[in-house]
């Protein structure tokens, strides 16, 4: 803890037992050992990040691999990625809401509404009016219109544009086209987010209450759209089926690997050396190289494994990286960029860290708080596309209770704080993987649903405990 103690001495020479960073206005680079020590002292001070989740993931993989022969088979690993993708994507959106210290309980059923609209547009060949009946159809258009108006009142023009686009698609009755359907689902999600955001930030209701009410309401809407006991299949569309069940070609897989690993290396190293040249605060080059090398090795190894034939059946050949991988990676990159490099992302963190400070600094707190719900619901709609594709159909249970709780759980397990201000989009991916491994592994061990639920609940409880304890640690370390 010595490194973290504020040093009071005014003497320019640091005493031997003081961390070099205590006098660090002039210090921009650290040696590797100093960086490692600094990292350890940060861990001790309770800034754990996603370390517990990563350790937990490793432990779970070891446990399941030793208990089940099938777990580490390539087919199962590829399957696991696709199984967890839907909830992982929803969790990415929820990270934005958690960052400002709010909660969106309606993200799951909101995604279900988007999925139901998608399925209905596909099944009715674009004739939503016929599928819904005129009253419901008009109310659906009115809801999209309401989303557009509320977004305009909040000056969230992207929300208005998407909601209006949704009205145009729905009202024009375009015939079924998988891309149009996906766009319509996204527009529906955006409009829902505009309504939630307005209620929370402008009207000032607690997000817990607003989204709890909407959770129930959207569940009813899905039921109304699909009908009691109904199921709408979407797997007959090759595109909609392949989103979660298809794979890239071998060439495409390697291309993705090159783009992803190369892009990561170029961005990280380019930034590192630019900062080094300009004399800004940087991590030691060795650690940056280690990170890039590690990610590169994992990427190449994963691609190599996933391009091997993994079919359990000798007559069929299954190779290539599942489509969900580039989808999740793409969203991860966009989300991380927005949160780390843009003014909008900076303001999200500021509102989550200290709302009053953000207000005094001139941040439009109302707009930021509303916008995260728009992001969350829009991203949840994308998640709905993926999980509907995986199942091949949409039923009235789409996006029901577990979807949301798993998504929130994924974000929290990954290290996003429920108290706001702390979290990254990558947390959702790590946490989502943990939950997918739990569900998949216990399923392979033929454990009943009861055990799966209990174990998942305990994992979430553990993650929330780590969050709370590390916060307490962080608070006591500074005072």
């Amino acid at each position, binding site marked *: 803890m010595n490194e*973290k103690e*504020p*040093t*009071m001495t*005014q003497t*320019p020479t640091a005493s031997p037992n003081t*961390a070099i*960073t*205590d*006098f*660090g*206005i002039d*210090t*921009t680079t650290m040696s590797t050992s100093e960086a490692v020590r600094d990292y350890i002292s*940060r861990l001790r*001070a309770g*800034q754990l990040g996603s370390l517990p989740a990563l350790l937990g993931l490793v432990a779970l993989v070891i446990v399941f691999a030793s208990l089940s022969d099938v777990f580490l088979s390539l087919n199962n690993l590829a399957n696991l990625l696709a199984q967890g993708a839907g909830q992982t994507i929803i969790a990415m959106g929820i990270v934005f809401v958690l960052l400002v210290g709010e909660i969106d309980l309606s993200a799951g059923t909101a995604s279900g509404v988007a999925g139901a609209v998608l399925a209905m547009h596909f099944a009715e060949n674009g004739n939503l009016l016929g599928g819904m009946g005129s009253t419901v159809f008009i109310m659906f258009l009115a809801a999209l219109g309401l989303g557009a108006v509320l977004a305009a009142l909040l000056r969230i023009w992207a929300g208005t544009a998407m909601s209006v686009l949704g009205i145009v698609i729905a009202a024009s009755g375009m015939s079924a086209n998988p891309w149009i359907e996906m766009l319509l689902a996204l527009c529906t999600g955006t409009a829902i987010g505009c309504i939630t955001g307005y209620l929370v930030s402008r009207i000032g209701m607690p997000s817990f209450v607003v989204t709890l009410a909407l959770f129930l309401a959207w569940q009813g809407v899905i039921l109304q759209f699909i009908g009691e006991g109904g199921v709408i299949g979407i797997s007959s569309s090759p595109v909609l089926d392949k989103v979660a069940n298809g794979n890239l070609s071998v060439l495409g897989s390697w291309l993705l690997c090159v783009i992803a690993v190369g892009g990561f290396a170029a961005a990280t190293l380019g930034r590192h050396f*630019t*900062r080094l040249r*300009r*004399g*800004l*605060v940087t991590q030691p080059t060795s650690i940056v190289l280690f990170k890039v090398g590690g990610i590169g090795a994992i990427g190449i190894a994963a691609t190599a494994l996933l391009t091997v034939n993994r079919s359990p059946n000798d007559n069929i050949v299954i190779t290539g990286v599942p489509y969900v991988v580039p989808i999740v990676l793409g969203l991860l990159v966009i989300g991380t960029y927005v949160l780390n*490099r*843009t*003014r*909008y992302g*900076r*303001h999200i*963190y*500021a509102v*989550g*860290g*200290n709302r*009053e*400070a*953000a207000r*005094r*600094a*001139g*941040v439009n707190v109302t707009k930021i708080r509303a916008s995260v719900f728009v992001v969350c619901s829009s991203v949840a709609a994308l998640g709905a596309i993926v999980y509907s594709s995986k199942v091949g159909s949409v039923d009235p249970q789409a996006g029901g209770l577990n979807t949301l709780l798993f998504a929130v759980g994924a974000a929290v397990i990954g290290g996003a704080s429920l108290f706001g*201000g*702390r979290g990254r989009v990558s947390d959702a991916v790590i946490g989502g993987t943990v939950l997918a491994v739990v569900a998949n592994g216990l399923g392979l061990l033929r454990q009943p649903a009861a055990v799966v639920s209990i174990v998942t609940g305990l994992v979430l409880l553990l993650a929330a405990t780590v969050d709370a304890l590390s916060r307490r640690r*962080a608070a006591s*370390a*500074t*005072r």
Partner: protein
Amino acid sequence: MSEPILHITGLNKSFGPVHVLHDIDFDVRAGEVTALVGDNGAGKSTLVKCIAGIHGADSGTIEFQGREVHIRSPKDAAELGIEVVYQDLALADNLDIVQNMFLGRERGSAWLLDEASMEKAARETLASLSVRTVKSVRTPVSALSGGQRQTVAIAKSVLWDSKVVLLDEPTAALGVAQTRQVLDLVRRLAEQGLGVVLISHNMADVFEVADRIAVLYLGRMAAEVYTKNVTHGQVVELITAGRSGDIGLARPEHAVL
């Protein structure tokens, strides 16, 4: 003697029937630390809030750099170059020092922040104030001590090219060594040519850094005196009784209420 950068005459402020500030005259000079002292409820915070644009004054004039101005909102004050460093510290714990110093005024485009330029400017500002005890400028504020936080909050106002900085009890919650740091910083702000107003309850602090002392007593300006012309005891008397010897408010029998 320099012209005051902020010149307030005849300022009145009431909250409903409660007349909080009576005909306040108050000057802030560039390059000087003016301590604003007074007992609890004397009106120090209200005066600062009137200057900062949080409360509108009922009457009176405020001249800034020789020109009459109307400060209606915190934004007006910020545009003139009047910054307030609040007691409860308007910093976001989860952001680092650079991010906090530039919060709401980030450099670069909205879709790609210019981190390099912000980091450099933040470091230069901290260095110009001879701040040596802050860790790397990329340290999250949550990892800083109370004094370091106060330092960052004060440095933020320097970064924005402020002309007048109002510090509301900057040393209230600090230990001995941290108080030392902050007082040094306050002194350096004045040396850089800013007009500094220091609200404090601590007479030792006031006598150490202030060039002038303005004493509020029950909503009236009891005295504005040079620190070197008064003693500790006189100031305490001014605070508690509103007068001390010949300085301060007129005796009640002569006072025109």
